[in-house]
């Protein structure tokens, strides 16, 4: 019904935007007044589209994000995912049997639980009749899980989907070398003693050298930190700027944590250990301390250090996504709408981490919004240098004209609206789980600060990126 209204009003001469805003949101109550002046400047009153179902986030949670090798180190990925699912069940009180489908994102897969979504769901007591699948798209895997959910609901297949993400960097699959694997497989097939002995005679000591999961980009063989350092240099981002930005992230995260703003965090009683209730990677330091660190990737003169990069993190997140009708019918008060989204991709060598630069204007245009309409920016912080390079890229006419096919620059981002509750640098970055954290942070910030639209953006390995508009649910 909402959509019909919007459609009608979009085509009216907007003499009184104020009145329009009011009508478009028939579901909202009088607290509308509160957001008054800000709303008036918006290009669009809402992003609802005719003939398309509105899709809402009822709520979302995450277990605390911890530095790898700390409290979660003895667990398996599905344990973390299960904890996040249980937290979501508890938070939303959703009856398990209502959930139509579950989808999770993850990056480094534990081979035993390669469809980690299914294992976690079964363990969390979801109906064995609820199908689940796992998606992977590097650091935007849970973004992909969310948009998959959006697609499933928008197409009318399902009404209630749980989307989430998980990553456990405390343990990674380290394999035997290909030669060793081949020998072991051949050994299984060998029938006679003679065949086995002849196979064994081919054994060489170097077969035993293990194969680590790739940290480097497959297509370019370059590690992400290395690429980030080059990117920072290409945009002339100094070490000092990077350290300052990292410090800002940690300070804001600390403040948000202290003020209890990180309400998406649910406590997790780790088996055999204490209950974990807080992210443990937030460590505001001083610029002097940070300046002492040696570069981590391009030695000895690079600018990316351990202090201005996101750290290896364990964590999981989950959120409940529904069609608006269903949510309302079940008596929920949703937190936000998931609106337009885009995926972008570019050169994985020199523009590996510029996803947000490309995604931002594209998703804004798609939604019919401008930068000024956005009240909340939630960007994934892989590296300080990456964030600052994206800032500079968006603020450069030269870059826009030569690489983005635009006439003018995207524009500068208002720092006062940007990642004000910390980001991946300080809160942590469990690859597969970050996307849901970004969206929940955006939704919660919109509610707290009274804004209407949030822009979520992230970069990912493979030179890909994601951007999505989150619209607050009228109070």
């Amino acid at each position: 019904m909402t959509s019909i209204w919007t459609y009608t009003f979009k085509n009216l001469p907007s003499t009184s935007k104020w009145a329009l805003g009011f009508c478009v949101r028939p579901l909202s109550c009088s607290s509308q007044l509160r957001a008054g002046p800000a709303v008036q400047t918006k290009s669009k009153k809402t992003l609802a589209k005719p003939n398309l179902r509105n899709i809402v986030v009822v709520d979302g949670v995450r277990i605390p994000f911890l530095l790898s090798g700390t409290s979660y180190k003895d667990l398996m990925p599905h344990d973390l995912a299960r904890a996040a699912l249980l937290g979501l069940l508890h938070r939303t009180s959703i009856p398990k049997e209502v959930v139509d489908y579950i989808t999770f994102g993850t990056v480094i897969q534990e081979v035993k639980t390669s469809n980690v979504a299914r294992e976690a769901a079964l363990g969390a007591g979801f109906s064995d009749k609820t199908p689940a699948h796992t998606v992977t798209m590097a650091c935007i895997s849970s973004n992909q899980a969310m948009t998959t959910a959006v697609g499933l609901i928008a197409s009318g297949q399902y009404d209630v989907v749980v989307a989430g993400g998980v990553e456990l960097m405390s343990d990674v699959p380290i394999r035997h070398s290909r030669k060793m694997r081949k020998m072991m497989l051949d050994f299984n097939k060998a029938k006679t003693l003679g065949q086995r002995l002849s196979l064994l005679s081919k054994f060489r000591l170097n077969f035993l050298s293990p194969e680590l999961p790739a940290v480097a980009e497959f297509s370019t063989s370059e590690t992400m930190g290395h690429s980030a350092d080059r990117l920072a240099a290409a945009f002339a981002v100094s070490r000092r700027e990077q350290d300052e930005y990292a410090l800002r992230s940690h300070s804001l995260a600390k403040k948000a944590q202290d003020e209890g703003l990180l309400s998406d965090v649910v406590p997790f009683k780790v088996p055999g250990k204490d209950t974990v209730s807080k992210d443990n990677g937030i460590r505001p330091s001083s610029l002097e301390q940070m300046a002492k660190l040696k570069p981590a990737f391009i030695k000895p003169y690079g600018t990316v250090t351990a202090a201005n990069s996101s750290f290896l993190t364990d964590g999981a997140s989950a959120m409940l996504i529904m069609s608006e009708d269903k949510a309302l019918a079940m008596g929920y008060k949703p937190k936000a709408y998931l609106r337009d989204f885009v995926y972008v991709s570019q050169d994985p060598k020199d523009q590996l981490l510029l996803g947000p630069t490309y995604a931002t204007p594209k998703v804004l245009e798609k939604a019919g919004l401008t930068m000024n309409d956005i009240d909340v920016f939630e960007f994934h912080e892989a590296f300080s240098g990456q964030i600052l390079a994206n800032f500079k890229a968006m603020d450069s006419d030269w870059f826009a004209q030569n690489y983005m096919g635009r006439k003018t620059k995207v524009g500068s981002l208002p720092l006062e609206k940007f990642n004000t509750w910390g980001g991946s640098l300080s809160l942590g970055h469990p690859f597969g789980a970050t996307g849901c954290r970004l969206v929940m942070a955006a939704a919660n910030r919109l509610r707290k600060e009274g804004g209407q639209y949030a822009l979520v953006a992230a970069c990912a390995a493979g030179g890909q990126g994601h951007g999505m508009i989150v619209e607050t649910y009228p109070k």
Partner: protein
Amino acid sequence: MVASRAIGSLSRFGALRTLRCRGYICRSFTGSSALLTRTHFNYGIKGDVAVVRFNSPNSKVNTLNREVQSEFIEVMNEIWANDQIRSAVLISSKPGCFIAGADINMLAACKTPQEATRISQEGQTVFEKLEKSTKPVVAAINGSCLGGGLELAISCQYRIATKDRKTVLGAPEVLLGLLPGAGGTQRLPKMVGIPAAFDMMLTGRNIRADRAKKMGLVDQLVEPLGPGIKPPEERTIEYLEEVAVTFAKGLADKKITPKRDKGLVEKLTSYAMSIPFVRQQVYKKVEEKVRKQTKGLYPAPLKIIDAVKTGLEQGSDAGYLAESQKFGELAVTKESKALVGLYHGQVLCKKNKFGAPQKEVKQLAILGAGLMGAGIAQVSVDKGVKTLLKDATVAGLGRGQQQVFKGLNDKVKKKALTSFERDSIFSNLIGQLDYQGFEKADMVIEAVFEDLNIKHKVLKEVEAVIPDHCIFASNTSALPIKEIAAVSKRPEKVIGMHYFSPVDKMQLLEIITTEKTSQDTTASAIALGLKQGKVIIVVKDGPGFYTTRCLAPMMSEIIRILQEGVDPKKLDSLTTGFGFPVGAATLADEVGVDVAQHVAEDLGKAFGERFGGGNVELLKQMVAKGFLGRKSGKGFYIYQEGSKNKNLNSDMDSIFASLKLPAKPEVSSDEDIQYRVVTRFVNEAVMCLQEGILATPTEGDIGAVFGLGFPPCLGGPFRFVDLYGAQKIVDRLRKYEAVYGNQFTPCQLLLDHANSPSKKFY
């Protein structure tokens, strides 16, 4: 198909390609408190670091000459005298080029050894000052750093290079018949060790930045940057400068030491080299190897060894003196002139005289996935050209596709490509058995069997499916293009493109135009060839064009020599002893005896008695017995997979016996045999110029050296006539003419040159 293999040293001429750098931008100064502009250098001061930027006007590359050197010393004197400056950075403003080397023209202008020695000594003096600088100087290297450029860099206290494919360091002087004359023979062994220094100076090979770092030739690497606030190339140079400035500061503050940690192997090597006996053994070994490879035809390598030896054994004063004197001696040798001439010729043959074509070839189609077809496909997909490879059978096609893949995969093994790049390049190739997609082709190159009827058949088939603008190129070695084009509906779009086997190794491409071939068709064929990395000569149509036509009389003479009882091994050693990279009998085996027979018969018909000499019957009998050369495992030699040693094919004895000719003692000395082969070649080449098949002597020399393996130390047939003397060659020809008749009759143009000694091809 007529083809020949070139030895490594010949293909190394490719190294010189980097001497030509692309792009040229002027950068404005930022962040400098002072700016002092001269012609070639300007410098600014960043804090207490002087940044000296080398940017010669009106040139794509920086080269070293007297003017540059004196300006450089002026700048350095100012820096040394300025108390506010504590260190310096030397950088080039030209993208893709640090310093390409010494000015070749300056050296070529030297008339006497003394003049060249003086140039060398001047260079030595400048670099010695630089080496002894009390203020550390950092060389910031982006792009080619070759010859004199390398010598300058190793005189600095510290070197930082961009890890870019364009950044190469090397001492290619030997390829020009020279030695590194500005301290290179003295400093390089100390810097990278004796074995590595010999390797660099004797092969002239280019060393990429990452390898240079491992060798200790550069101290730091800087990664090239992608797009940012500026174009990547521009920002990379700026970044290199920023990094170099911090290192210069660090050196001045003694926070960084220029010494580096050596690995275990390196420590052991340098320990071993400190023992005089071991050094003597190394000199001996290297000398032996050089003598074996050069057969005494190239003086430069031995002098390089000498200069290094003198410096190490008798101290640096003696070393520098030896270096400069030997440099002087080498600069005026015929060999050096020949090699420098080839270098210039190569540069010329890398330009498109016909201008830019109207339409770039983006979609190429190749007919026939044999050795040649697949080879052409490989060098095309390599450069991003989308290529359709069509063959008649699945098996033939599969073989061709595997050949392309193997060629690319070998590059992965050599780390010239990543496996990802290989896959991405290989996806430019589409193999097929039909004409699907030909309607979008910009050019079709046929490499089907050398038979006029088959060529006519495919030409008609292809013309039925290709678009109007599409060019039809024939990769034939001897069939006249005019005859192939006879059945074409649009002869202006028909052209010959004669590649040499193996296509990925042989640099030459002979383009053949008929009277009807349009200018744009030619321009387009050249443009594609240049993209494929070829050195190109454009010749007129005629039987055998240029290369095959020169080869045929030479081959004929070779057969006669064999018939006269010289065994193939002896013949091979005589021809390689003259400077041919591949012996004559081996060459026939490589080319294919059946092909040689084909060519001999065709051209024999076209040119008659003049192309006679040896009896084609010999080739016929070989073909009848299946002795087709390397491809069939037997020819003059026996070829075994995996075995390098080749033995004579004893089954040939009966053939030789049945066709034996009496040897003529008056023209059968070793030298005479060599000259009988060479003079027929040279005479035919000159005749090609006389008849207008060739447009310029340069193209004749380049075609002979790069396509047929004419001795590079002689510089090609035309350079050879100039340097050796036309009269002497005519005398030789007359001597042989007296015995064998008109096959040796000197052509008119050669006679003209003999009659007036002032006449030169160059």
